[in-house]
């Protein structure tokens, strides 16, 4: 059957199981938007293309499905760049479709032309320019395949306007042929055998879990591995939720703002089992002093992550589910050794327990002024276990990581790699679209919130009941903290001088706003916000110069933490 390019696109999306797309129309995608009117695909109109990508990203992180974005050429396309880079750094599967000027005009500096394929080459897993309608179906099929398989990531398809109106036979391929793309899923058995021996021999083992393990499948096997041998486990920011934080074996987060006990455990460990993590500089601190006594097993689907930043004693390339299952299954063949290993590591666990006891995650409470950590604790109490929490980037993000007890995969959506302020609100929007019945909360600061606050309009339009928490300190708090600690309190451009009336802002968009400044009002405000059927801003005027601790200053070793401000 003959169809136009734009109809073919929508039909392909439908066959890929896409129910919702996020986007913003414009001249070079106007045909696609016209065909959307008759399509079963649901479209969420954000108020900025960056937000459309973050929303699709939030949708993808919460569901594990591929998020889809449509944007126009030129500025529409360039506005997607930060969103794409954010998804790329955190390995989130997206397909971003950008309009492009008609093929005869490409390269002529036409109106709203930008070489988005060139611009996004280093921040996509792969990208395409559709030059011939005959290639369209194959490209879309490959784009979804590449986005969701192996180490997931964003794929961009640049789709010129003239090809959208050209007709061709619709024939969606069943399979892809990509001779250069064959991710390794199955972990090498000999490597697994070695890993089992190393794990059984370790006296001070620690499991270090990254975002790769933040899926229900991997998390289940991770749980088994940790529990059968009683191995303490720490997660990165991205790994949060892969293992319940309240679990006795959990060490919480490691790294720059990690817990004292996680950082001490990694420093003293004799075996580090890295699972779907990539040894980011915010995790390792000074690399020569990172886990100095440990042998390192690194399990990851992406071979480039292995030995990139740190030396590795045993690499295992493969899907975490597969590798962890193999390890757990092989371990089961050594019940005696497991028993012995559990006994021999008992003293290690009591050492860690002592660190937990002496240096818990804590803050100094106040009855006069709202402590930001107190708000997070109250949210944790009042939000259900399956609540999805998103954050922006900065102090509030770290406090959320420290004080919220995540217990399920895919419940903490945060920009870990790129560190994108303005991520949280649109990501919450996308997560709420995916799960209309679940509680979705964006924990934000007053600085970050203003980077995508226009998305309040989208929340109201689609009646998405996202609850927005603004921990307002009238500062760009994280930068201010660095200026306080390392730049003699010279607060250069970090004071947000204009007090914003966030209640009025919410109301201007047709949402509900609350603003409180007394600690005894916090709980009541959260309850009231949760009772409102639509989107709500809760502004908490918090202690202005509260710092995030512990803190490992940049370039220092993990055990050189600043413990209080």
């Amino acid at each position: 059957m003959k169809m136009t390019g734009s109809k073919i696109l929508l039909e392909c999306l439908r066959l890929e199981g896409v129910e919702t797309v996020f986007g913003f129309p414009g001249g070079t995608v106007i045909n696609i938007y016209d065909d959307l009117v008759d399509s079963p695909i649901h479209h969420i109109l954000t108020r900025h293309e960056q937000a459309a990508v973050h929303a699709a990203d939030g949708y993808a992180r919460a569901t594990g499905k591929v998020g889809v974005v449509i944007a126009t050429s030129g500025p529409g396309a360039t506005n997607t760049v930060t969103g794409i880079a954010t998804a790329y750094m955190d390995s989130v599967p997206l397909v971003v479709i950008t309009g492009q000027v008609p093929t005869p005009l490409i390269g002529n500096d036409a109106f709203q032309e930008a070489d988005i394929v060139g611009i996004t080459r280093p921040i996509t897993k792969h990208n395409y320019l559709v030059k011939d309608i005959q290639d369209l179906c194959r490209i879309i099929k490959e784009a979804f395949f590449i986005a969701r398989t192996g180490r997931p990531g964003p794929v961009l398809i640049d789709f010129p306007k003239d090809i959208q109106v050209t007709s061709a036979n619709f024939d969606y391929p069943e399979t892809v042929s990509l001779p250069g793309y064959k991710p390794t899923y199955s972990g090498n058995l000999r490597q697994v055998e070695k890993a089992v021996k190393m794990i059984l021999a370790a006296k001070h083992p620690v499991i270090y879990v990254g975002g790769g393990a933040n899926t229900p499948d991997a998390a289940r096997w991770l749980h088994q591995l940790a529990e059968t041998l009683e191995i303490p486990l720490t997660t990165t920011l991205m790994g949060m939720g892969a293992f319940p934080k309240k679990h006795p074996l959990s060490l919480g987060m490691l790294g720059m703002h990690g817990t004292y006990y996680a950082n001490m455990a990694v420093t003293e460990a004799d075996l580090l089992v890295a699972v779907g993590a990539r040894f980011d500089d915010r995790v390792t601190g000074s690399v020569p002093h990172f886990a100095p006594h440990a042998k390192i097993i690194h399990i990851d689907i992406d071979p480039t992550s292995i030995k990139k930043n740190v030396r590795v004693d045993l690499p295992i390339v493969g899907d975490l589910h597969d590798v962890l299952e193999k390890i757990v299954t092989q371990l089961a063949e050594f019940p005696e050794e497991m028993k012995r290993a559990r006994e021999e590591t008992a003293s290690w666990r009591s050492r860690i327990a002592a660190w937990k006891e002496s240096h818990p995650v804590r803050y100094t409470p106040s009855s006069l002024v709202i402590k930001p950590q107190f708000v997070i604790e109250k949210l944790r109490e009042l939000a259900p276990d399956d609540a999805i929490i998103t954050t922006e980037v900065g102090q509030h993000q770290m406090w959320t990581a420290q004080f919220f007890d995540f217990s399920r995969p895919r419940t903490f959506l945060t920009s870990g790699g790129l560190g994108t302020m303005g991520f949280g609100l649109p990501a919450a929007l996308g997560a709420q679209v995916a799960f209309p019945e679940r509680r979705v909360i964006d924990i934000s600061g007053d600085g970050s919130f203003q980077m995508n606050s226009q998305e309040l309009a989208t929340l109201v339009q689609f009646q998405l009941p996202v609850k927005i928490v603004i921990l307002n300190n009238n500062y760009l708090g994280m930068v201010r903290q660095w200026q306080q600690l390392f730049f003699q309190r010279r607060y250069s451009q970090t004071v947000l001088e204009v007090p914003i009336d966030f209640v009025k802002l919410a109301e201007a968009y047709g949402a509900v706003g609350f603003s409180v400044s007394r600690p005894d009002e916090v709980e009541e405000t959260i309850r009231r916000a949760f009772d409102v059927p639509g989107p709500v801003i809760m502004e908490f005027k918090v202690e202005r110069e509260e710092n995030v601790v512990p803190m490992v200053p940049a370039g220092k070793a993990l055990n050189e933490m600043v413990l209080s401000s």
Partner: protein
Amino acid sequence: MKHIISVLVENEFGVLARVAGLFSGRGFNIESLSVAPTLDPAISRMTIVTHGDERILEQINKQLHKLINTIRVIDFTGQDRVEREMALIKVSAEEDTRAEVLRIADIFRAKVVDVAPRCYTIEVTGTPGKVEAIVELLKPMGIRELVRTGPVVLGRGPKVVEK
């Protein structure tokens, strides 16, 4: 340490930019790069000369593999190989130096491919070392312009690089 790498890629739009962008984006060096289609016109073969320590080379290798359009990556360093590059050298040929230029060309089994009243263009093929050597010898005669292809490489013996 210097490494010579062959990369089989799908002969598609933008592949060269992906490879070049990978090297520049990650701070790897490219000393030379040559690329052309193989017997199968759907596949191109790149020969890249780069340098770095073992860790960097491992990353280059893996990162090249990670590109969707990359089919194979072979590091020929330390392997038995045939390595050749070509240079075209436009060299002054004054009355007093002309004979010497021809003599040098002859010794290197280079060819004079263009003759002008006071200038010869010489084509030389060989290992990078040989090209280096003739360039050094011709320098005193006055090299006006020089272009080199960068080396291409094949493994010795019957074994071939398959896609």
